[in-house]
Structures are given as structure tokens and as C-alpha cells.
């Protein structure tokens, strides 16, 4: 993906599947289209491969399952949600290949999709799906490796096939055929609630993933941290929404990988026995690899109308270091919610980002809009003027010009 014309945000893959790229710089208004060479999607090397090192489906159940998954995979070739950015794809593959055997790793197709929730999945034909929301939530390479290792273990142990057979065994022909679309790529979890069988598989995959992590030289304690963080985020979401936390629920979005307390305890215990390399989290490598993506992943998160979860994630990303970029995101979160007390805070976050060296034009736009609502019209106009000076071709120029009192 060349010619991205490096902008402050660095996000440049929305609609990339169509060769149409956009940079969102944290707000929808700050878009710039650039051209890029289309990236050719990888060709499945699953069914029908004559490479003897490639595992082939052995019986009619497995062959049937693979064929369906291959069909599903074709959709990814034109799916605009697939992030084609070569650097990000190469990085995720590199992490996976540290965990998987070289022969197998080469034939796994990874599809990173722009979906702002926590999930990853692996189909029996070697298709791995990683959602952008997962990448926003794992904080270092070891945590990413924990999830990828878990998914790879499902694949290695042929869990989908086993599960499919189990479903067929336990239900009649008319009903299992309806479950086919769910048996592989996305909704393994639909069945999770029905069969304890897949719970066993989850435990097996957790254990397998941890073993792979240790062998690859990661600190295996990070595996439990992934789920602990997720549980804490669900609590944060629930507090603001005044609902019950989903952390101990078995259904819904997280049903494929329930972040149960039991899971955290099991992983912690496993990590005690198989520690891997303590302290080897690869945090710096992870940060560097994901840096160009943060702005757009955070932007997607901010637009989910999940104040509690978003605030939790921003605080987690910042740690003790609120960069201008993160302050900007937090300011936008408060400005957009605009409940009692939010606007003065938003104003202060914008100001802190600017004092901290932030030069994103949208900082002045956001602060101007906030000041306008706070009744500081004069200061607001000065900010709008500064915004347009810094972004003379802003997509909302005409609208903001009116707010500056110009025409």
C-alpha cells in the first residue's frame, strides 16, 4: 500500500479492498483520498494442493467442511472490511509463524478485518480472522501471541471438524445442516452454548496456545492478562450504561471465547507451570507495528457509543503517558458525549494535547466546537480560524467558515 501520503493519523485502509483509501485523522471530516496499487488477495492453498507438506482433508466430512470454508474465504477477496496494509499483515504473520510449525504457517491465510470488537477465529482450511478490535486491546506481542496461539491450537487439533461431528452425532440431519454456516468461520460459539464439548476444546486450545507461546519465547503470564483486561473493560462499559457486566455471560459477541474467571485462573495456573521467558512481552515491537493503525482503530472505537469501554481503553493505552494523540481521542470522546461536565473536560484535553505538541488540525476544530457550546464564542472563532489555516482543504471547510463569521 504505497503512496499513503503520511498524514498525522496514518490510517489509510478504509475501503482499501476497492483501491480506495482514506485517512481519517480521528474525525470523519478529515479525510483525504489517495491512490494505491491494489493488493492481490492470497490464494487458498487448501483443498487440492499437491504440495506434500500441506495437510489435506482425509475423509468426506473433512473435505466437505473445507470446501465450504474455501467458499466462505472467497468473500474476503473483495470484502472492503479486510485490511490489506502489507506491513500490518506481515507483522501478524510474523507473530503467528513464531508459534506455528513453519510448514503449516506458510499455508495459513490471515485476514485482518476492520471490526472494532475483540475476536479472532480460525477455520479448518487454514483461514485465520483477526479483528481490528482485538489489535486495539492486546497491549503487547505476547498477548497477541496468546490469542493467535489459541486459535492455531484449534486448527492444529481439528476442533471444528470434531465439533461438527459431535453436532451431527447429537442432532438429526435436518438440524445440523442448518448449522453448517456457523460451524467454521465465525460462529463456532453458537454451538458453545449447546455443547460442553466445545468448552473442552477451549481449554485444550488455551493449553496448546500457552505451550506454543512458551516455545516461542514469550512470557506466558500475558495470556491471562488478555482476559483480565477484557473483563475489566466489560465492567467499565456496564457501569456507564448502567447495565450488568457481560463478563460472565456465555452468549453474545464474546461467546466464542468467554472471558470467564475460571479461564483466567486456569491460564494463570498453566503459566506458573510453563512460564516461557518471563518479561519477554515484545511491547515495544508491538507498539511500533501498530502505531500507524492506532488513530483509525481508536476512531472506530469512539464511534461505538460505548463511553465507559472507550475511556477504559484510552486509559489503558496511555498508561502514564498521555500522548497528544490519545488526549485528542479522549477530548473527542467527551465532546461527542457532551453530558454535564463533559465539555470543560474536553476543552482541557484539547488544550493539553496542543500544549503537549499536538499539531493535528482537528484539535483546533474540536476545541472550537467545544468552546462554542461553552459560550466562549470569541475563543471558538480563533480556534476555527486556526483549524482552517492548518487544514485549508478540510472537508467541512464551508461549514466551519460560517462559524468563524466569514463567508
Amino acid at each position, binding site marked *: 500500500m504505497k503512496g499513503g501520503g503520511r498524514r498525522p493519523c496514518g490510517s489509510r485502509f*478504509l*475501503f482499501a479492498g476497492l483501491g480506495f483509501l482514506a485517512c481519517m485523522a480521528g474525525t*470523519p471530516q478529515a479525510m483525504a483520498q489517495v491512490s494505491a496499487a491494489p493488493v492481490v488477495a492470497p490464494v487458498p492453498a487448501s483443498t487440492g494442493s499437491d504440495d506434500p507438506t500441506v495437510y489435506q482433508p482425509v475423509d468426506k466430512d473433512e473435505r466437505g467442511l473445507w470446501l465450504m470454508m474455501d467458499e466462505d474465504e472467497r468473500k474476503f477477496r473483495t470484502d472492503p*472490511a479486510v485490511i490489506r496494509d502489507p506491513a500490518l499483515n506481515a507483522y501478524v504473520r510474523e507473530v503467528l509463524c513464531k508459534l506455528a510449525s513453519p510448514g503449516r504457517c506458510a499455508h495459513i491465510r490471515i485476514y485482518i478485518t476492520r471490526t472494532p470488537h475483540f475476536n479472532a477465529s480460525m477455520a479448518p482450511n487454514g483461514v485465520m480472522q483477526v479483528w481490528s478490535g482485538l489489535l486495539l486491546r492486546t497491549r503487547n506481542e505476547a498477548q497477541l501471541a496468546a490469542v493467535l496461539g489459541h486459535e492455531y491450537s484449534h486448527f492444529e487439533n481439528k476442533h471444528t471438524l470434531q465439533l461438527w461431528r459431535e453436532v451431527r452425532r447429537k442432532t438429526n440431519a435436518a438440524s445440523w445442516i442448518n448449522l453448517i454456516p456457523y460451524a467454521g468461520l465465525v*460462529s463456532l460459539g453458537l454451538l458453545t452454548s449447546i455443547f460442553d464439548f466445545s468448552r473442552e476444546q477451549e481449554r485444550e486450545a488455551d493449553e496448546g496456545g500457552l505451550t506454543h507461546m512458551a516455545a516461542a519465547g514469550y512470557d506466558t503470564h500475558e495470556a491471562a492478562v488478555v482476559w483480565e483486561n477484557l473483563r475489566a473493560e466489560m465492567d467499565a462499559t456496564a457501569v456507564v450504561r448502567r447495565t450488568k457486566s457481560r463478563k460472565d455471560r456465555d452468549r453474545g459477541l464474546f461467546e466464542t471465547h468467554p472471558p470467564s474467571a475460571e479461564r483466567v485462573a486456569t491460564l494463570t495456573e498453566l503459566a506458573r507451570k510453563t512460564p516461557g521467558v518471563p518479561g519477554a512481552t515484545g511491547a515495544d515491537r508491538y507498539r511500533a507495528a501498530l502505531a500507524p493503525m492506532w488513530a483509525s482503530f481508536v476512531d472506530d472505537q469512539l464511534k461505538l457509543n460505548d463511553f465507559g469501554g472507550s475511556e477504559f481503553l484510552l486509559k489503558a493505552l496511555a498508561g502514564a503517558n498521555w500522548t497528544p494523540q490519545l488526549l485528542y481521542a479522549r477530548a473527542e470522546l467527551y465532546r461527542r458525549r457532551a453530558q454535564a461536565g463533559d465539555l470543560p473536560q474536553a476543552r482541557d484535553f484539547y488544550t493539553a494535547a496542543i500544549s503537549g505538541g499536538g499539531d493535528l488540525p482537528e484539535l483546533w476544530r474540536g476545541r472550537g*466546537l467545544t468552546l462554542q457550546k461553552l459560550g466562549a464564542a470569541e475563543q471558538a472563532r480563533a480556534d476555527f480560524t486556526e483549524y482552517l489555516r492548518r487544514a485549508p482543504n478540510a472537508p467541512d471547510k464551508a461549514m466551519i467558515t460560517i*462559524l468563524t463569521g466569514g463567508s
Partner: protein
Amino acid sequence: MNRFTLASALALAGSLLSAPAEAKYTVVTHGGPALAAGGITVNPAEDWNRDSRKPIKKGEVWTLDGPSLNALYFVSGLAAGETLYRDADKKNRPLPKMNGSMLLTDIPEFFESSARVALNTSLFEVSNVAPVKLGGHDAVRFSYRYAVQGSSLIRNGVAQGTLIKGQLYLIDFAAPSLFYYERDAPKAEAIMASARL
């Protein structure tokens, strides 16, 4: 998965209608003034079909060939605390609520956030935000494009919105970028230009 399939088959407003099997349409004849969503009067230059299913109490969908191919969504007087579409999954994916302190510049953001949550997509982008008059009131016009997860079909949209006494009045048109948008957007924009609030 079902949700994605349903959403991908329909344009934005159309996809958020309830009970798709029970669609009933009545013709809105061209030439004369017609009342939409109980509060917006327009003069269509061609016959449209009014969908009996309302996404929300204060919203109404018109279409030419079916809501998946062209959907004109009227919203009349959305008040603080109300949502742009039906808040179908309040617990897990609550829609943003109208805020009494909104400015015109907040309308595109409110629209985008509502659409992203309702359609469960991140492939949504707004562009060309500009001032316009809607029914004689200062208003904002913006374009957008989006896709839903699992579908490669891109849809385009254009909308105009204004705030009167803190309530939102909006006319939004969405159609597949292939053929329909180009053919029908001028008709939709003519309707927007004819609006009286």
C-alpha cells in the same frame, strides 16, 4: 451473521425497518405537496412509495424500487433523548441519543455514529460537510459512503439536516453506488430542496 446478511441486503434506513415481511406501500403521487413523517412537506416530481413500516415514531421511509435500492428517510422533530433509528439492542449496542445542546456541525457526527452502531460496521465515512438551507432554515448537508461487514457492495448517501428548537429535522437518501445512487440522488436532492418544515 443473520444480522449482517439482512443489513447488507438493504440500504441504510431500509435495513433498520422492523418486520421486513410485512411491508406495505402506498403511493405518494407526484405534482402535489406531500407530508412526510408527520412534519415535512415536500413536492416530489415523480411517484414514490411510502413504506408502512416506520424505523421510529418520527421517521418514515420512501422508496422508488424498494428500500434496498433507494431509500429516502425523513425524520421530523427528533427530540433530546431520542434515537435516529430503532434502538433494537439497547443492552449491547445502544444507539446514540439526541442531545439538546447539539449544533448543526454535530448532525453529521450523530448520523455517522448512529449508522455505525445500527449497521454494525466501521466502514462508514462522511465527506463534503457544507451549509445549506432546508425549508428556509440554516442546515447542514453532507455525503457519506458505507459498506456492511461481509458485503462488498458500497452504498452512497446524501443528507440534509437542521435543528429547530433543539429538535432534529433530517432528510437522508441512500442507494448502492452502482447505478442507483447516480440515477436517483438528483431526485432526492430536488425533494430536499422543496422541503417545508
